[in-house]
C-alpha cells in the first residue's frame, strides 16, 4: 500500500473511531438509569436505615440495589414485582458466570447488596460470615414458600437465604432412540457410545455415582473417590461432549447428536416445546433437585431495600415469569400449584407427588470436597 494513501486511511480510521466514541458517549449514555431522586449510582447508594418496611409507603422507597446475579436474570421480567411496587427504587446488576465465580467475587470485595448462589454452595457464605441474617417478618410473601424450601436456607437455626428458583436434574433422552430410562447408570451404557452427554462438573459426577452406588454424598471416602474417578475415566469416551451450558445440550439433542444426557428440566421443556420426542426420566435412584437462593451480603448498607427486593422476588408475577419464560420452578408455592400448561406440568411432574418424594436434594459441599471433586474431574478429562 502506498504510504501516503495508507496514512490517510489511518487518519480516517482514527477520525472514525473518535467520532464513534463521541457519538456513543453522547447524551443518554449514562452508566445506570437513575429515574428517581437518587444520587448518581456508581456504587450502591447509602440511605439511612429506614424504619420497618410496613411503615414506609412504597412510593417513597428510594435507592439503588446492586444485585450479583447470573447473566440473564437482569431481565426485568425476573424482578417485575419489585419494579412495579417501588417505582422510585432501582436495581442494577453485576454478573457472575458460576457459583465459584460469584463466591470469588463476594470474597474478592464485591459491593453487591444481594447475590444468587445455589444449593451446595451455601455453607461457605455462612461459615465465613459473608451473609446477613434475614428477618422473615419483613417478607410479606414468606408464607407461600414451602417449608422444605425454607429449611434449605436455614443454618444454625437462622434464616440466611431466601429460596427463589428450583428445578430437577435427571436423564433427558430421545424417545425415538432410547424409549425408556430406568436408572442413572445409562450414562455408563457402552451401547450408546458417542451419543451421551454429561454435565461438565465434578460434584455433579460424584452425585451421579453416589446415587448409583448408594454412597453417602456428604461423606465420600478416598477409596470411593478413586472408584468414582476410575468409572468416569472409563465413561469419558462414551460422551459426544461434556455440556457446559444448556443451549449446547439443547442444540445437540434437537439435532440428534446426543440421545441421553444429564439435564435440567429447562432443557426438557424447551425441547418439548420444539416438538422433539424427548422424555424426562424418573430413575429408580430418584431425581436430583437444586434450589437457587438469594442472600444479603454482610455489611451492605441497604439491608432494608434488600429485604424489599427479596420479598418482591417471591411475588406472583415474578414467579409466573420464571416458570413461563424459562421453565424453572419458583419457590412461590401458589404459582406452582396454579400451573395449567400441559408441557410445564409434565416438566415439573406436578401431578405426580411420588416423584418429589423420591427426589434427592443437593447437600452443601465443604471446601475440601469442592476442591477434591473438581480435581478428580480435571484428572478424568486430562487422562483422555
Amino acid at each position, binding site marked *: *500500500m502506498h*504510504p*501516503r*494513501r*495508507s*496514512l*490517510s*486511511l*489511518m487518519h*480516517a*480510521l*482514527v477520525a472514525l*473511531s473518535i467520532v*464513534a*466514541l463521541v457519538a*456513543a*458517549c453522547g447524551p443518554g*449514555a449514562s*452508566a*445506570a438509569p437513575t429515574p428517581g431522586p437518587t444520587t448518581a*449510582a*456508581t*456504587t450502591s447508594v447509602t440511605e439511612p436505615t429506614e424504619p420497618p418496611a410496613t411503615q414506609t409507603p412504597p412510593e417513597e422507597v428510594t435507592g439503588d440495589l*446492586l444485585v450479583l446475579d*447470573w*447473566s*440473564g436474570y*437482569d*431481565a426485568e421480567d425476573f424482578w417485575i414485582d419489585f419494579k412495579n411496587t417501588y417505582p422510585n427504587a432501582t436495581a*442494577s*446488576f*453485576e*454478573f457472575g*458466570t458460576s457459583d465459584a*465465580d460469584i463466591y*470469588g467475587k463476594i470474597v*474478592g*470485595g464485591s*459491593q453487591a447488596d444481594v447475590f444468587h448462589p445455589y444449593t451446595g454452595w451455601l455453607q461457605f457464605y455462612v461459615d465465613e460470615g459473608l451473609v446477613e441474617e434475614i428477618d422473615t417478618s419483613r417478607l410479606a410473601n414468606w408464607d407461600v414458600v414451602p417449608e422444605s424450601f425454607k429449611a434449605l436456607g436455614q443454618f444454625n437455626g437462622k434464616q440466611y437465604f431466601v429460596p427463589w428458583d428450583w428445578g430437577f436434574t435427571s436423564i433427558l433422552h430421545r424417545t425415538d432412540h432410547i424409549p425408556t430410562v430406568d436408572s442413572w447408570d445409562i450414562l455408563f451404557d457402552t451401547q450408546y457410545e458417542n451419543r451421551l452427554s454429561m454435565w461438565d462438573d465434578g460434584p455433579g459426577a460424584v452425585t451421579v455415582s453416589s446415587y448409583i452406588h448408594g454412597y453417602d454424598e456428604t461423606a465420600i471416602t478416598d477409596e470411593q473417590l478413586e472408584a468414582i474417578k476410575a468409572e468416569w475415566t472409563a465413561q469419558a469416551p462414551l460422551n459426544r461432549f461434556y455440556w457446559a*451450558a*444448556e*443451549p449446547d445440550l*439443547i*442444540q445437540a439433542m*434437537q*439435532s440428534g447428536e446426543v440421545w441421553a444426557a444429564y439435564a435440567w428440566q*429447562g432443557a426438557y421443556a*424447551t425441547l418439548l416445546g*420444539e416438538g422433539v420426542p424427548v422424555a424426562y426420566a424418573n430413575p429408580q435412584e430418584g431425581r436430583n433437585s437444586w434450589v437457587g437462593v438469594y442472600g444479603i451480603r454482610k455489611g451492605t448498607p441497604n439491608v432494608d431495600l434488600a429485604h424489599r427486593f427479596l420479598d418482591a422476588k417471591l411475588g406472583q408475577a415474578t414467579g409466573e415469569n420464571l416458570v413461563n*419464560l*424459562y421453565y424453572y420452578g419458583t419457590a412461590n408455592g401458589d404459582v406452582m400449584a396454579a400451573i395449567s400448561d400441559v408441557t410445564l406440568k409434565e416438566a415439573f411432574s406436578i401431578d405426580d407427588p411420588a416423584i418429589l418424594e423420591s427426589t434427592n436434594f443437593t447437600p452443601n459441599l465443604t471446601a475440601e470436597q469442592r476442591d477434591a471433586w473438581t480435581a478428580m474431574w480435571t484428572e478424568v478429562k486430562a487422562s483422555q
Partner: protein
Amino acid sequence: METQVGRSWRGLRLPALPGFYWLLIGLLYLPIVLLAVFSVNANTSLTLPLRGFTLQWFERLFETPALLTAVKNSLIVATASSLAATALGTMVAILLSRFNFRGRGLLTGLAILPLIVPYVVLAVALLVLFTVIGIDRSLVTIALAHTVVAVPYTTLIVLARLIGAEPQLEDAAMDLGATYPGTLRLVVLPMAAPAIASAWITAFTVSFDEFALALFLAGREQTFPVYLIGQLRFATTLPVLIATAVLLMIGTLTLILVADRIRRR
C-alpha cells in the same frame, strides 16, 4: 516468467495465490452466511429443517434496550482499548527498533507477557489489582484489561514493520534539519502506517468479541459477548442474538466497502 522492473514488481504469478485467499474468505464467511439464513428464519434454534421467512427477530432486536446498550458498550470499549493498545504498541515498537538501551529484553518480554497469561488468570489478577487500588469495576476496567491483552499484538505487528529497516530515510531527514521527534512524525510513522492500521484493527477485533475479561471485570454495564452468553442460557433468545450478529456484520461490511469506494475515487 518475465522479470518486472521498478515498482511494478509483482512477485510470483501464481493463480493459486488469489485462489487461496478467496478460499479462505469463503471458509471464514460460510458460518456467517448460515447465520444470516437463520436470522430471517422462524426457527428458534440452529437446526434444520428451515421453517418460514420472517423479520420478527430484527424487529425484536430493536425493541430490546439491554441488547442495544450492550452493543454500544462493546463499541465504546473496543474503540478505547484499541486506540490505547495501538499507541502503546507503536511506542514500544519504536523503542525496541530505534534505540539501544539496557532494558530491551525486559521490555520485549513485558510486551509479550500478556500472551502467556490465560484470560481467566489475567482477569483475577486485574480484579485483585483494581480491588487494592479501589477502582470499581466498570467499562473502564474492561477497557484497561483489553488494552493489556492487545498490546502484544500491536507491538509485534508494528515491530515486524520497523525492525531492521534501513536508516537512510531517517538520516536524510535529519540531515535536512528535522529534529528526531519530527523525523519520527514525518518519516517513521508514515512508513509504519499500514502496520499501525493493521495493529489497530487487530486490537479492535481482540476486544470486540472478548468474553472472559469482560465478564470478570464488568460492573453494571455489559458488553455484547457477555450479554449474548448470558442470554444463551435461555434458548428462546437465540434468534434475536443471531439477528444482532448478522446486522452488525452487514453494517460493518457496508461501511468498509463504502469507505473503500470513497477512498479510491
